[in-house]
């Protein structure tokens, strides 16, 4: 009846029990607040069943931020353990639990935080920047989000019921095979990544088609904002890379559930095949995360320099080149697997080539500031820190891409320092920058600038303290994922410094959380009434903040880059106010239903509750059939209503 699920699954170590209690309490708290404020109906109608990309984007980002707290808590636990667990002391968590923690940290940060903020920003900004009222496949988009959300929930469930994978965030076999990991941890990992991965593929298809087919009249590819270009390139990567992940995970599933031998060490299997396949997805994946950050900076830097972007064409070609190269470098993740010098040298040099377009981008951003008027608002502070960190990360990346050097630093904390420099210094700082930049556009009010700056300085110093010493630890022979080490290694004092760095980052995060809370509380005082607070250049700033449900009352027409800038400088005419009927897709709960059912399928498969999995799978198919055979339903907003809403928004502006 319950498969492998027994009462044992609910027994944990003390530290985990604390985490489970905290999670349950906050869950109950949130549900309590919703009941208290009687907002279920509002949530259901305006959010859960919505297919509006603006709503879905906000939900993506809220989910990703919640997961970020969880992933960061994992990080703090690891650093605390490593600062304590030296010589005779064995720290406060067991080796097995420590391995669960770092596996969960990596999975959470990449799949749930990284992908969440990328798709969140894409949902919010891409339609606005291309002058579209909607995305190409609104239901597919909503479904992608709900699959992502259900994968997040499955990872939280694994905290309370049973255990997480102990095989690292990429679960290399044979360790992740049934022989060495017989319990449910790897199964949890497989299903949550599988569900999130399918969701990502769907969102990828949706945004690729949206960008290619739904641009407003006149916006040719070479007149798209760079953020849209970066999104386009990232989506191409999603569409090519995620099917590899899905197929690889299915093969691992077959190995574990049906005793097949794709990746087992003996009986004809080959674990090296898995390593190749997972990185054929994994390397493009890191570019899926970083390209949108490049796009964000390409919007932020010109806006706050009161200039247009330097070298637009170069920037586009650099993006395309990075997109292409990211598919031919995956082998650099395992130079140490014993491939001959022919293979290693080729992939080493290919990897170095990526430095060229990336370097070009950095110079173009810097020269965007040249002869500009640079406003040092917090988005620009993040850019400032990005350049400093990212160039160091790039330099160490080149070191890692040279096979003989890689032999000495691979799998050490040097590698950890490198990719955290790229992911935090690149993607996360980019996201913070974009978050602050577009926050007034989406919500209609500002984030607290003062608190943002405090948070920035905490992050900047904390980041340097938490990750620069790791380069040194790597040179000292410290490998990653160690839950304990001998005192004679001399690592302990550095691990303590690194732990202090993590604590400073925690201060930064707390300030950010407080800033967000305070801004929401005082939103009436910080309203963005103009809709264009930063003197923007692109279409999203030509409409009120927050945007009306239909985004653009009049579909804009564009004949050059930076269309809003052109209008402001009198180089392009003001748009005519001829309103028309607007058709928008109706809300549907099917995405939510399928998300919940997928969550149950994942849980049931993890615990081998086959009947439940089959029932829910059939239900998913039924939901899809119902949805796909229905009429394509639309809400119509008539021209008169549009006129009324636009007039109201202008009146509101004048009143304030």
């Amino acid at each position, binding site marked *: 009846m319950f498969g492998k699920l027994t009462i044992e699954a609910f027994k944990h170590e003390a530290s985990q029990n604390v985490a489970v209690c905290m999670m349950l309490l906050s869950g109950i708290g949130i549900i309590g607040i919703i009941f208290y404020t009687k907002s279920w109906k509002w949530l259901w109608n305006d959010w859960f069943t919505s297919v509006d990309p603006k709503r879905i984007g906000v939900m993506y980002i809220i989910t990703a931020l919640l997961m970020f707290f969880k992933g960061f808590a994992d990080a703090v636990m690891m650093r605390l353990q490593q600062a304590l667990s030296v010589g005779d002391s064995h720290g406060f968590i067991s080796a097995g639990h420590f391995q669960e923690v770092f596996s969960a940290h990596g999975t959470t940060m990449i799949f749930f935080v990284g992908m969440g903020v990328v798709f969140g920003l894409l949902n919010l900004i891409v339609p606005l920047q291309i002058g579209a009222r909607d995305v190409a496949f609104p239901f597919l988009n909503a479904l992608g989000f709900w699959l992502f959300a259900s994968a997040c929930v499955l990872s939280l469930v694994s905290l309370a019921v049973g255990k997480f994978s102990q095989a690292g965030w990429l679960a290399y076999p044979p360790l992740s095979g049934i022989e060495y990991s017989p319990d449910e941890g790897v199964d949890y990992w497989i299903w949550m990544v599988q569900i999130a991965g399918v969701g990502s593929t769907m969102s990828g298809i949706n945004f690729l088609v949206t960008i290619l087919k739904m641009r407003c009249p006149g916006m040719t590819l070479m007149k798209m904002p760079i953020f849209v270009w970066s999104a386009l390139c990232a989506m191409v990567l999603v569409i090519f890379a995620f099917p590899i992940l899905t197929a690889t995970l299915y093969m691992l599933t077959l190995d574990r559930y049906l005793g097949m031998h794709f990746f087992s060490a003996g009986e004809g299997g080959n674990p090296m095949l898995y390593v190749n396949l997972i990185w054929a997805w994994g390397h493009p994946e890191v570019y899926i995360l970083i390209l949108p950050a490049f796009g964000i900076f390409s919007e932020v830097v010109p806006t706050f320099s009161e200039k247009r972007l330097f070298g637009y064409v170069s920037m586009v070609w650099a993006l395309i080149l990075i997109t292409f190269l990211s598919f031919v470098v995956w082998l650099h993740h395992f130079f140490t697997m014993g491939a001959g010098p022919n293979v290693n040298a080729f992939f080493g040099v290919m990897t170095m080539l990526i430095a060229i377009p990336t370097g070009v981008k950095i110079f173009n951003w810097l020269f965007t500031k040249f002869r500009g008027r*640079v*406003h040092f608002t917090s988005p620009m502070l993040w850019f400032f820190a990005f350049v400093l960190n990212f160039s160091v990360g790039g330099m160490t990346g080149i070191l890692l891409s040279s096979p003989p050097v890689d032999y000495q630093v691979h799998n050490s904390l040097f590698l950890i320092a490198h990719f955290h420099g790229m992911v935090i210094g690149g993607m996360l700082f980019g996201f913070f920058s974009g978050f602050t930049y577009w926050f007034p556009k989406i919500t209609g009010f500002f984030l607290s600038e003062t608190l943002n700056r405090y948070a920035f300085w905490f992050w900047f110093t904390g980041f340097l303290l938490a990750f620069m010493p790791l380069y040194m630890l790597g040179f000292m022979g410290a490998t990653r994922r160690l839950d304990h080490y001998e005192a004679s290694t001399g690592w302990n004092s550095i691990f303590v410094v690194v732990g202090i760095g993590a604590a400073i980052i925690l201060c930064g995060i707390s300030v950010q959380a407080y800033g967000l809370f305070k801004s929401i509380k005082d939103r009436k005082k910080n309203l963005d009434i103009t809709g264009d607070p930063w003197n923007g250049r692109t279409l999203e700033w030509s409409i009120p903040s927050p945007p009306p449900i239909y985004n653009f009352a009049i579909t804009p027409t564009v004949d050059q880059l930076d269309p809003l800038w052109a209008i402001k400088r009198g180089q392009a005419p003001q748009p005519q106010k001829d309103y028309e009927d607007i058709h928008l897709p109706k809300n549907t709960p099917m995405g939510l239903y399928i998300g919940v059912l997928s969550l149950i399928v994942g849980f049931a498969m993890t615990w081998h509750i086959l009947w439940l999995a089959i029932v829910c799978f059939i239900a998913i198919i039924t939901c899809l059939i119902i949805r796909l055979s229905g009429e394509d339903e639309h809400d119509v907003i008539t021209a008169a209503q549009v006129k009324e809403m636009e007039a109201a928004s202008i009146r509101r502006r004048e009143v304030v």
Partner: protein
Amino acid sequence: MKNRIQFVPLMLIFAGIIVIIVLIMQPISVHIFRNNIAVLFPKGIIALQERNLLFIIQALMLLVIIPVYILTFIFSWKYRVNNPKAKYDPDLVDNRLAEYIWWGLPCILTLIVGAITWVETYRLDPLKPIESDKKPMTIQVVALQWKWLFIYPEEKIASLNFVQFPKQIPIHFEITADAPMNSFWIPHLAGQIYAMPKMRTELNLIADVEGDFRGSSANLSGEGFAGMHFIARASSEEDYHHWSESAKKSTKVLSMEEYNKLAAPSENNPAEIYQLKDEQLFNQIIMKYMHPKEK
């Protein structure tokens, strides 16, 4: 954007101080920890060459990084919004020469680094025997759950979590695993290479000086992974012979039967020495994975 006071000079100075502190900390920490920084103070010719390559590439990369840092600070300073002296030219969005320069320079630099890497990858191929007038010595390595077994087929001895060899003689490691994937790494002497079940990888190195060097597994292999470190002792030839003679007299005998007991998962095993009964043991461990398991 009004009413926001600009603290640009203050901010740049503060950031500059942080960056300088980070820069100064590097040589200081290198000095403080010099005895433990295996990669930067190697004790073997292979690790030394790998370190030198690291320095060369690092130096070349600094040619880009330093200008980027300088430009970041200068442009932030000079073009701050309330600097009345700075020129403002919002339509300066293209400059062919400038773009040629920063497409071209990274290209040339990458070409140089790439060429060096290409040559060095062949030269430092871990499979390549080291040229030496002395006869190389073969040591076979098996990664187990969670310990390292070293087999000396020529001497007919074996050891656990401890490996000794004479200095200044090329050592040829043959590496496999009877466990999940591991990575065999003695940072003082040479870079790492994976130890995988069914596969045989190789690593060649020489220890230039005597000493005890820490070796470990660099790849996650399960619960006891953190305890998978061992001592690699490079000694004089005399000491080595002394040690191998004592191993030959060891009361513990490593046969296939004994090996199977040893291969069962265990953590933090102390160092051991064995007589080796069967010099084909290493090949048998690999062959185990080559044919289907008997049901």
